[in-house]
């Protein structure tokens, strides 16, 4: 379970999150929607532990433990995973090399043995096949020259291999065509589990037709202003964010 309590965050003296509270239960898929500039991406970075964000108040508890005191790599080992909106390219580093380094780094932090190469290969190939990622792509340098869709599939592949407790998907649908959206969504749906929860950040209802959320939260001005079931997303699709923008202006 992830609980965010009264989170207040600045970037360079500018208030981005302003007393945000949110609870995501185990096994739950929560969607966050909201207009541009409402602080959605900041929320994802603060959960993952990116520097440059000044947390002035509040807590983020993963199963009762405040992760704000942990470094980004420790949070990853504790089970936080962020699927980036813009995955980074790492020139010269083979995708397989990166995957192995990441999996073993987390295992080490948790006091587990390193994966043997055959085990590693089996796991990667099985997960890659489900996401229609071919062997050729696995041989290339990580994300270098990948199309938008390939990058997003690579994020989901990493999510599958690292078996996180809490996944944040930051606008994973941006830049995806219909086919890629389907593959990525199926990949995420396959990972839904009792002991794993998701925070799906998106502008559009479209993604939520594929990844059907349990709860929908609307963010504006750095806090959650409305929560509801999956039908809330449909309402938003019909009415737009005008109401919340009006709030902003007011």
């Amino acid at each position: 379970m992830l609980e965010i309590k009264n989170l207040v965050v600045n970037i360079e003296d500018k208030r981005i999150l302003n007393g945000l509270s949110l609870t995501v239960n185990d096994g739950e898929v929560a969607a966050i929607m909201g207009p541009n500039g409402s602080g959605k991406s900041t929320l994802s970075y603060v959960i993952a532990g990116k520097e440059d964000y000044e947390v002035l108040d509040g807590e983020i508890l993963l199963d009762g433990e405040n992760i704000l005191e942990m470094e980004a790599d420790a949070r990853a080992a504790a089970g936080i995973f962020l699927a980036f909106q813009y995955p980074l390219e790492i020139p010269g580093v083979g995708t397989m090399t990166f995957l192995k380094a990441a999996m073993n780094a987390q295992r080490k932090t948790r006091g587990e043995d390193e994966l043997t190469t055959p085990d590693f290969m089996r796991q990667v190939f099985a997960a890659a096949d489900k996401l229609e990622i071919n062997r050729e792509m696995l041989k290339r340098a990580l994300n270098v020259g990948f199309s938008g869709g390939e990058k997003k599939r690579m994020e989901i592949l990493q999510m599958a291999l690292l078996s996180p407790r809490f996944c944040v998907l930051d606008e994973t649908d941006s830049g995806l065509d219909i086919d890629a959206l389907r593959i990525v969504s199926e990949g995420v749906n396959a990972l839904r589990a009792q002991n794993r929860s998701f925070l799906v950040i998106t502008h559009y209802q479209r993604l939520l037709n594929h990844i059907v959320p349990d709860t929908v939260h609307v963010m504006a001005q750095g806090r959650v202003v409305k929560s509801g079931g999956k039908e809330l997303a449909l309402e938003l699709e019909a009415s737009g964010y005008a109401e919340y923008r009006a709030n902003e202006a007011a």
Partner: protein
Amino acid sequence: MPAVQETVDRVRAIDVDQYKYGFETTIEMEKSEKGISEDVIRFISAKKDEPEWMLEWRLDAYRRWLTMKEPNWARVEYDKINYDELYYYAAPKRKAAQSLDEIDPEILKTYEKLGIPLREVEVLEGIAPERRVAVDAVFDSVSVATTFKAELAKAGVIFMPISEALREHPELVRKYLGSVVPVTDNYFATLNSAVFSDGSFVYIPPGVRCPMELSTYFRINERDTGQFERTLIIADKGSYVSYLEGCTAPKRDDNQLHAAVVELVALDDAEIKYSTVQNWYPGDAEGRGGIYNFVTKRGDCRGANSKISWTQVETGSAITWKYPSCILRGDNSRGEFYSIAVSNGMQQVDSGTKMIHLGKNTTSRIISKGISAGRSQNTYRGLVSAHKKAKGARNFTNCDSLLIGDQCGAHTVPYIESKNASAVFEHEATTSKISEDQKFYCLQRGLSEEEATALIVNGFVRDVLQQLPMEFAVEAQKLISISLEGSVG
């Protein structure tokens, strides 16, 4: 990449000022008197039992040197070297060894500690296809051991200390010595010509593919001693050789001078692959001590279709002044230069290459990766030129610099001269910083900050590491991470 984990562990295990090879060997040495003079040169020549012409050659170089000025165009700053305060010859007192059993055990121990095998390990047939490397070990001014000589001799390969070659194959040495780097080439090369004490000599006969990799391992041990080795490699028609060079020195507070000359000659259809892992003591974090490395390395693709390839990994030395070059004289000859230069602390690197296109349809390729950290300065300086007759010459150059932290510098100084309209030269250069976003991406996947930096740096140098023989590449990868220790954060 298991090496990443290994390097991280190693980096953690040592603190900033530690240089793994910084120990000193206590051993009785015989030295020339301090300073340089005709007498000292006569002394060195007599010690080596050299032919008369060699002594004359040295004296001629010395007289030239006296008229020359130390070059100052490189982007390096250092206190003036006092050439009268150096020892130009230092050798272990024990007489030259005929077998390993006669070598001073302290020296054997030294090389053991450095991980250099001087004992020829028996390779059992059918088991473990172990790669064997023949080693020439140079300790201060003399070669102390050369392994696998007998087996190489069977293939007709000559691999021995140059001092020995001067006695046993004077005609070969005389024919080629100074034919690539002339006595008057530059201040440091001329000094080397006057006082060089040892180094390796390699001759590969026509049509022979050298049956194993050859390697020379240089160790400066003695205090206040300059090391001036001379390496000469000749690949006769249609032959092939791969040669590795490694170097280390003890940690000392004062600077030591290393001024080597390496000459390569490739005749028709021959190929020489020369790899260096330079790990001289770089000085401490404040810039005290360290080796001044002023080296002249040049290969002559003298024959048609010949090929010379330089690969270097430079991590050590307080100052590096080094431009391994290729003269592409033979038609269709090819020169390659692959370089990784890592600087940290207060190190200063001014390194690069020259590709001189003289023959028709000659090609060259330059891949240079500079990594600067700490307060170091790292300069790539390169020349690509095409002579009037170099019809169809082609060069591709790629210089990438990576900065770690914000107190270091990277500089690229390319010179391009073409006197032939059909020449095609391409130059690409990039400078990048390890981005915070890249690092965060790695951390988010669970890698530590050190692991993330090691991974990104390894990716950056990958295309050069691939040029190195495998075991060497693994070593080099570790070395790069160790050199960058303390640069993270």
